């Protein structure tokens, strides 16, 4: 095949290196790479199913007013008789309970496994196949690489967390028109909570992924971190009867932060399965913050050792 069909053309002007473009480039391409193959795509699709199922349940439940009132009174411990005397504040609180339950009980598991599927490979593969040398030879900073990889992992996780939950919220608001007004401000909060939840997971999995060359160990280490800390905290809480041991569980801390986003006060207005009162937001934020900081430090150290400035 003739090689020199046309002479090599030089660019007329050279764009300056821009971090923002680099971040989006890595985010796009590595995001697409994470979704390559039937297993990652399949997992994303399966994670949408609960959204539909819960929406149908909500539809069936809201056909007669009494069942809805029953649920509302149950949650808010009040005795309203009809829709119009339920104050906006209660609708908001019931809706945020729905969102909280949806994420912690259903979508949280999909996101946990999804974090391993989409995140474990990100840095480990680059190190194993020395693809890292390609990034290093480009005019980008180490923060661009890290933020780009974070975006690549957060995108599918957001899709898992926010889309089904948002869909159910929308269904609830449509089927119970009275609740639509007060819940409007819940949507941006849901998105913010989803972003926080996904980003924390992404930061931790990137830290773990930069520990070694094999994404296999990153996957196992992530599951060990998630399930073993949960099991340990349950055992210690039951044995010692003192719920301070809740903070050992990565999952519990993540849920406390989620609850704070949804401004659900853990003490009085909820009887959902929730960490007991003396497990405060501050301690959870501290622990998750330290874990995230450690993970970021690990990734940056690994990236800097590869000579990104």
């Amino acid at each position, binding site marked *: *095949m003739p*090689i*020199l*069909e*046309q*002479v*090599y*053309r*030089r*660019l007329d002007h*050279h*764009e*300056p*290196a*821009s971090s923002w*473009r*680099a971040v*989006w*480039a*890595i985010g*796009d*391409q590595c995001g*697409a*790479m994470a979704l*390559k193959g039937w297993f990652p795509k399949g997992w994303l699709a399966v994670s949408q199913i609960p959204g539909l199922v819960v929406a149908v349940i909500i539809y069936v439940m809201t056909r007669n007013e009494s069942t809805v009132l029953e649920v509302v009174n149950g949650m808010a411990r009040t005795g309203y008789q009809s829709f119009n005397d339920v104050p906006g504040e209660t609708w908001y609180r019931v809706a945020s309970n729905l969102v909280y339950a949806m994420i912690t009980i259903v979508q949280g598991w999909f996101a946990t496994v999804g974090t391993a599927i989409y995140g474990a490979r990100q840095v480990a*593969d*680059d190190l194993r*196949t*020395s*693809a*890292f*040398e*390609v*990034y*290093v*030879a*480009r*005019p*980008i*900073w180490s923060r661009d690489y890290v933020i780009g990889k974070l975006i690549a992992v957060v995108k599918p996780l957001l899709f898992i967390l926010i889309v089904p939950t948002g869909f159910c919220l929308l269904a609830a608001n449509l089927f119970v028109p009275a609740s639509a007004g007060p819940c409007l401000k819940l949507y941006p909060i849901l998105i913010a909570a989803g972003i926080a939840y996904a980003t924390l997971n992404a930061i931790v999995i990137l830290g773990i992924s930069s520990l070694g060359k094999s994404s296999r160990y990153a996957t196992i280490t992530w599951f060990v971190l998630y399930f073993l800390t949960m099991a340990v905290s349950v055992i210690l809480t039951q044995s010692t009867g003192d719920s301070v041991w809740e903070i050992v569980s990565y999952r519990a801390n993540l849920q406390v932060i989620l609850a704070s986003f949804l401004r659900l006060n853990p003490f009085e207005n909820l009887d959902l399965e929730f960490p007991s009162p003396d497990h405060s937001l501050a301690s959870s934020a501290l622990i998750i913050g330290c874990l995230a900081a450690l993970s970021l430090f690990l990734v940056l150290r690994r990236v800097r050792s*590869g*000579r990104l*400035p």
Partner: protein
Amino acid sequence: MIPTETISPGHPRTDPTSGPPIITAEDLRVAFGRYVALDGVTLKFGPGAHGLLGPNGAGKSTLVKVLLGLVRPDSGSGDVLGHSIHGRQTDLRHRVGYMPERDAHVPGMLVIDYVSMMGRLSGLAKRPAEARAHEVLTYVGLSGERYRTVDSLSAGNRQRAKLATALVHDPDLLLLDEPTNGMDPVGRREMLRLIVELRRVGISMLVSTHLLPDVQEVCDGVAIMAKGRVLRTGSVASLTANIDRNWKLQIVGDLGPFLAALGARGVKVAHDETQGSLTAQLPEHAEPRLFIEAAASAGVGLKEMRLGTRTLEEAFFEVIGEAPHAHS
């Protein structure tokens, strides 16, 4: 003996030391634990194509990585395109295209996505990067393989993909580490033709390789390295200057009368059975016609009559000093 097939006869060879220096290095020293990779390297390259020649483990790759800031030198300094290697690497890497020795690619990513991503990392926006990627891939001859994954390509095509990523942001300087490694002769010749073409367009380059024909065909200046030290630098022509005018001859027909005819004309001849060729010393201010007359008078056919220029391999082995294991 490595045949010196000429790929593109007559391409202009600039003098390596003219013009402002593109790459300078003063007493660069790098050691990985006990193993000393660079042992005080000092050199200066002007514009044009320069070769870094040496056996495996001579420190060539390490030097290229130090110039690009991928490896921090223990001591010594240097600068590339005016940017110091100790300073901020981002502007240095913005103007340099790097083609790594190993297969540094993201497995599973399509070639077109891979090249356009590299363009975006160098500052191009999304659309222009994709357009540029298509153009560069067509130029290196991968227009057929654009939509295949990088790791499914053959060794030759992977090298072209690497060259494409090095060119996508239109660098002023190309650092090529073993550009034709693992390629078969047909592919190798095309890759060298691409590199010569790039040189003609005005891109300076540093080619680090242990394949001597690559350097001979492409580079003006060459630095021969071994065990982390630069042993000799100079233009390719100076290294392979043919001091003695010996000619390689091959004939068809019986040897006796031909040797006698040559002897009568005062030509000293050495016969080398294995290769079946003769090495004849042309006397002072005599014309090659002498050989043709001898052949005609002896009634033998003349199959080959070539000035045996001293190939780089002979220069290389001479400089390396024939050490059986030049590398550690």
